[in-house]
Each structure stands twice: as C-alpha cells, then as structure tokens.
C-alpha cells in the first residue's frame, strides 16, 4: 500500500515539472519586456536596467528558470505587478473562495447524482429512467453562465429572495455569506449533476449485467441490498474518477461562474491578471491550478482501491 502511494505521488513529479517549464516558457514567448511594462511610461533607461537587474532578466533563460524554479520551492511566486502583493497569499485567498463553492457544489451533486444514476440504471427503460436521463442531458447541455443568469433573474430579480451580485466572507457575516454563494453553488451543482448522473447510470448498467449481481439476487437478498452492497461499490469507481477530473477542472476554472456572480475567486484573479498583463500572477495562477489538478487526482487515485481492491494488486 505504501509503495502504491509512493509510486503514485512520485509519478506526479514529472507532470509538475513539465507544467512549470511550460508556464515559464509561455510567458517568455509573449513579446514585450516585463520590466518596461512594469515601469510603464515613467521608464528611463537607468531605472529600466536597474529593474531588469532586480528581476533577473539579464541572465540567460536557463538561469532565469533555475532562479524562478528555486523561488517556487521556497513558496515565493513573486509579486504582483499591479498591486505589489506577494502572489502566493493572493492566490491562496482567492482559491479558498472558489474552493468553497466548488467543493460544496460537487459534494451535493455527487450525493444526488450517484443514487439517481443507480436508480435510473436499476429501472432501465422505465419512465423514471427516461425522466432522469432527460433531466441529466438537459442540465449537461445548458452552459453554466446561462444557467447562472437564469437563476439570477428568477431568484434575484423576480422573487428577490437572494442578493444578485457580490460576495461576503464567512468571517464577516456567516448568514449573508451563505446567501451570496447559494446561487453560484446551485449553478455548478445542477451542471455537474448532469454529467455525474449519466456516468453513474452507465457504470451501474455495466455492473448490473454481471453474474455476481444475479448471484446476489439468487442468494435471496432484497433489491436494496443488491444495489447497496453489491452494485454500488463496483459501479462507483468510474464515477469517482470522473469526480476527480471535474473537481480538478472546476477548482481551476470557474471563471465564468465567478464572473456572472462577481465573486472574487481564483478564476476571476486569473482573468483579471491576464487583462492587466500581470505576469507573475498569471504564472502563479497557472502553476497553482496545475498543482491543484494533480493533487486532487492523486487523492482520487489513492482512494480508488477503497472501491476496487483489484487496483492495488497491480
């Protein structure tokens, strides 16, 4: 087991390294001089060369990379050009906001979608199945920003139950904070539920066909026991992997939803810093998103043997 974990974690190292190289290279490929950009129209040649010196831009690219990479290891992602804040704390602050929304949405989506998908598969081709699959397909096909806008119009403007824009942190006012993030969560929840229902249904169908399910029924087990005890664990594997991918995706990229609801999350930070050509922040965000993606998927992989003991055997 320890070896399985160690192997899986070590396998992520090359991925992260390649990601770091790509992020670094990407920024270098963009024409223009960061130093000139940072000083703006106030630049005089002496100040420029001074800043270039400080930023390490005088070194060759490999050396620049080495310095940058070394700094990352010390948790130093540089400073924002626009706000002069250190990048890492900035990212962590914003990430926490996004993560709250994403985790809650995906958690609820899983809790609803997995049983729904299993029931749909259990009663395949019934009216219930048709309704569930139909709903899932619609949810899946609707773009999140549009779904978000619909919710805004309904609950924000028509019914006036919920505030329309803004964000309040939990530490300030827990109740208000809740009211502000309900709609973004609902948007993501509905959208991801569609994907997860379909996945859960498909893998349950696969499993229900197998002999051990018939065997379980032939033992005299009730349908509930057959589904819960025998089908669930075996059918949940593929859905679990999908949850990992969805989480990884969302944690880095709910910019659209954050824009619709004007929430200061990680996605917004990335978009804003791209508009502002704030290179250290862009680099930091990209790297951080890749890191989160990899970590989430490692955690998902490490938990996979819980559902399928055959995985560790390999």
């Amino acid at each position, binding site marked *: 087991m320890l070896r399985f974990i160690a192997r899986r974690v*070590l396998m992520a190292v090359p991925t992260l390294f390649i990601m770091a190289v790509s992020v670094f290279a990407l920024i270098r490929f963009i024409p223009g001089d960061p130093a000139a950009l940072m000083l703006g129209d106030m630049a005089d040649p002496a100040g420029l060369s001074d800043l270039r010196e400080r930023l390490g831009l005088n070194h060759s690219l490999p050396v620049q990379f080495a310095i940058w990479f070394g700094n990352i290891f010390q948790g130093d992602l540089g400073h924002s050009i626009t706000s002069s804040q250190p990048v890492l704390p900035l990212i962590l602050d914003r990430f926490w906001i996004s993560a709250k929304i994403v985790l809650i949405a995906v958690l609820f989506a899983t809790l609803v979608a997995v049983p729904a998908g299993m029931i749909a598969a259990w009663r395949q081709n019934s009216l219930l199945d048709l309704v569930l699959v139909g709903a899932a397909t619609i949810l899946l096909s609707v773009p999140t920003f549009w779904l978000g806008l619909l919710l805004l119009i309904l609950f924000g403007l028509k019914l006036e139950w919920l505030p329309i824009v803004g964000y309040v942190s939990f530490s300030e006012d827990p109740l208000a904070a809740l009211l502000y993030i309900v709609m973004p969560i609902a948007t993501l929840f509905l959208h991801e539920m569609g994907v997860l229902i379909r996945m859960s249904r498909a893998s349950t169908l696969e499993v229900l066909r197998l*002999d051990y399910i018939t065997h379980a029924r032939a*033992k005299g*087990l009730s349908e509930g026991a057959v589904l819960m005890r025998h089908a669930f664990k075996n059918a949940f594997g593929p859905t679990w992997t999908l949850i990992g991918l969805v989480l990884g995706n969302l944690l880095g990229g709910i910019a659209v939803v954050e824009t619709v609801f004007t929430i200061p999350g990680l996605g917004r930070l990335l978009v804003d810093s791209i508009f502002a050509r704030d290179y250290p922040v862009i680099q930091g965000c990209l790297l951080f998103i890749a890191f989160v993606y990899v970590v989430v998927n490692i955690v998902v992989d490490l938990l996979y043997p819980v559902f399928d003991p055959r995985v560790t055997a390999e």
Partner: protein
Amino acid sequence: MARTELLQVEGLSLVVARTELEVVKNVSFSVAPGEIVGIVGESGSGKTLAARSIMALEPPATRRAGGSIRFEGKDLAQLPPRELRRLRGSRIGMVFQEPMTSLNPSMLIGRQLDEGLALHRDLDAKERRALILDMLRRVGIKDPEGALEAYPHQFSGGMRQRIMLASVMLLQPALLVADEPTTALDAVVQRDVLELMVELTRARGTAVLMISHDLSMVARYTDRIIVMCKGEIVEQGTTQDLLRQPRHPYTQKLLAAMPRRLPKRDLSTSVQPIVEVRDLVVEYRGRQGFFRKESGKRALHGVSLAIKPREVVALVGGSGSGKTTLGRAIAGLLDPAGGEIRFGGRSVRRGSEDWGNYRLNCQMVFQDPYSSLDPRMTIADLVREALRLVPEMGHREKVERVSEILHDVGLGDAFAGRYPHELSGGQRQRVAIARALVRRPAFVIADEPVSALDVTVRAQVLDLFADLQQRHGFSCLFISHDLGVVEQIADRVIVMQDGRIVEEGDRDTIFDQPQDPYTIKLLSAIPALEAAANGGVRLRWRFDDMPQGDVATA
C-alpha cells in the same frame, strides 16, 4: 406419475418484452428430490433463460408469458417477491458460468459467504463462521481462514468456482441450478469441480439442474437429460436411453456432432519435415516500471518439434501450458529468446532471407471469430487482404481466388459484400479459414479454431477443415485444449505442460497408451465415445481404473 416432484415446470413461456418474440416456448419438465437433471442445448436454445426464470431471475428484457413453476408445492410464478426471496438461496441455490464475474470483486470472500447464511439462518456470527470454514475446507480451499479475508481476484478460476459452490451449498438448498458451471475451466479442473459438486449434492440430497452445451459432460453426471432447441424441449428422458436411442433428429444431430476418432490416415513417413522447431525459448519480458523491475517469465523452455508435409499435429495442454505461446512464436508473432525455426530445411527468423517466403506460407486461424475479423471490412476485403503481399497476382486474379476460396469454405459469392456482424459465429470462422487458406499456404497454425463454436457448428467447421486439409494438402499445427476435437482431427499429438513438451506420439498411441501422468490426467477428464446402434452413443470414462497420480492441477 407416481414420484413426488421437487420442481415441476409446466408450460413455461418467456417472451422478449419489446418484440414479443417467444424465446422459451411451452416448456415442461420436472426434477425429483436428489435427482440430477441436465438441460442441454446450443446457444440461443433458451436453456439458461428457462433455468433462471425458475427463481424469476430472467433478465428484465424478457417477460414470463405463461406457465407455472411448482416448487415444494408452491407456485413460484404466483409468489410475491418477498416470499420468493425467502426461497432464493435457502431452498434453491444457483451456480454461475463465469468464475471471473460470479463473485463480487470488491467484497471479501468471507462477507460474501456470510451474507446468505446471515439472511436465511438464525445463527450467530461465531456459528456462521464455523459453518463457512467447514464448508471451505470441504470444497478443498487450503487456507480457509485466510480465504475469508481475501478478495476473489486472489484465486484462480477453479478455486473461485469452488468458493462459489461453497457459498451456495452452505445453505443446503433442496435444488441447485448450475448454469454452465465449468465451461470456462480447463478440462482437468472442470472434472474436479464437477465431481465435487456431485459429491456435495449427493451427500445432502440436493437435486441438481445442470445447464450445459456439452452433452458428454452432462451425460456423465446426470440421471436424466432434457434437450432444448430454439426455445423448445425436443426430447427428454433418462440419460441412458437418450444416449443409446435418441429419437428426435436434433438429439441425433447433437450426438453425431460429438467428435470421435476417425480411421488413421496414411502419411508417407520418410519425407523431410516441412516445419522444424529446435529448442525454442520464449520469455515474456518483465514489466519495467519507474521504480521496480519485475523479472520476466519464461513461457517456453526449449521446445522442439517437427511437422511433416500434410500432417496435422495437435498441441494440447491446460491453460498456461505455453501452447498458444508456441503457436505464436512459430507464426512469427513473438520473437523467441533462443532456438531455431526451420521451414523447408532453411532457418527462418525475422529479417532473414527466407522470412518473406515463410510469412506467405505460414498462416494462422484464431480462436475468437468475433474479434479476429475487422468489423469495418467486407468479407471479400478481409480475405483479399491476405493476398496483398503477393506481387505476382493481378487484381482480377485475386478477385477470382477470393471467390474460389469463399466457395471452398461453403460461403459462396453471396457473402462477399457482407460485413462480419451479419454472419454467425460458424460463418465467421469459415471466413477466418478462407483468409488463411487464400494464399495456399503450406502450413497453417490453428489456435483453438473451434472452441468458441456451438457443438453442431463445430462439427461442420471441423469437417470443412479436414476436407480442405485433404484437398489443399497443407500441414497444420492444431492448438486445442479440447481432446475430443484433437482425437478426431490429429495425426500426431504433442502434450505440453508448463512450457515443456511432456509427451508426443501418434494419435492412437497417445489416446490409448499414454505414458506421462499429465497426459493421463488430461485424457481422464474427457469421456470417450463409442458408437451404438440407432445413431446413439456410449460414453466411457477413460482410465477410470488407473490410479490418479499426484499431478499438479492447473
């Protein structure tokens, strides 16, 4: 009828819910307490559906359209689900075909065994555990305590089937429904498991309803046989009568389709072998991961054999014996780690001068006709593709040759434009044979070419193969685990075990006077057939009187 029946099925009909197609038609049969009854039929005969519907376990796509199922005086067809569930497992047990999927892969064996017992019997955990351990011991699991804490994938197919049997017999049901209980197993393991099943059920007076496509296997163990064809029961009677005097043409056809020994062929013995293999060694490379290196496995330990022109040499052995590896290595699909392959007296090896010629002259037929044909190519394209590397043939000539060979395998031009999915398994295997023979090869390697086919289809394809072999005169390495088929078709037999040849000789010598204990064990796992009058047969168990040596079970 004077006897009291345990199970009485009357006029059972099943239809496919969407098309109203009747897949089981008015089926009636009965099973007396302690009796062993076999249902025999080919795929699509409805035998599995009929058996599963006893406990209402037919797939949801089918619906019961009529009939009654009386078990211990109750009509199961009228029973509410709750009542039915009380009978499932406790009074009627079920064993499944595929040992790889019939146990839940993510649940400990102990829990799976305990589940049924906890549900139906009023025992505490300690008593249940004692019962389970006792039962595991009886089915021959060496470390029962350890098995409880293990997952199914940690056991071989034969062991899983034993565990399955233990799980069902724990509750001492009055009736055991065994759906192709050993089809996926080696002949030797199959016999062990079946004997165990019969022994266990006899000891507890459990009746068995055994479903199988294998008439000889069913005949060995049953008191009565029911023959099904296309959803109907065509004949039923005591096993003895049915074998000796089959009345229905379909039963006669089934019996006639069972492989039997043909007269020995006359092959001139003095000629040079066409294919020679010397000290062939094949190793599977170990996995080379990032962090560890698994050592490779030697699959063949220096194997030598020779095949003469026109000769059919059978390669037999259990799974893991290396027979398929050997076939693939000779075909050039695997690179040997050592040894030599000679063709027509000259050494061939990938890249050698004669390699191209050898590849044209050595063709292969694979086991599974469903996966060996590209589903997106027409039959004619599939067969013609084999001619692509023959430079001296023009397009027209190739088309003619394809048409000719399709006629030869009994398909004809009508099939040329069709796709594989439009063909039955037997027809597909004919295409595979046509594809191998269209180049007129001197040597054909057939890897279990008929194992995936139904009994009657198998007989037809085997006849076709023998006929083509006579006419075209190619040599053949015939790889098979089915000794019945081998007995019918082979001139010479080579027996393999663990990557080595343990015995080789004339077909008649091997089948009548085997020397090696492993050969004896293999042979004793399959019955011998002797023709009787009226198209009937007599079954004989080979070497039953011989002591069973301590031969390792595969």
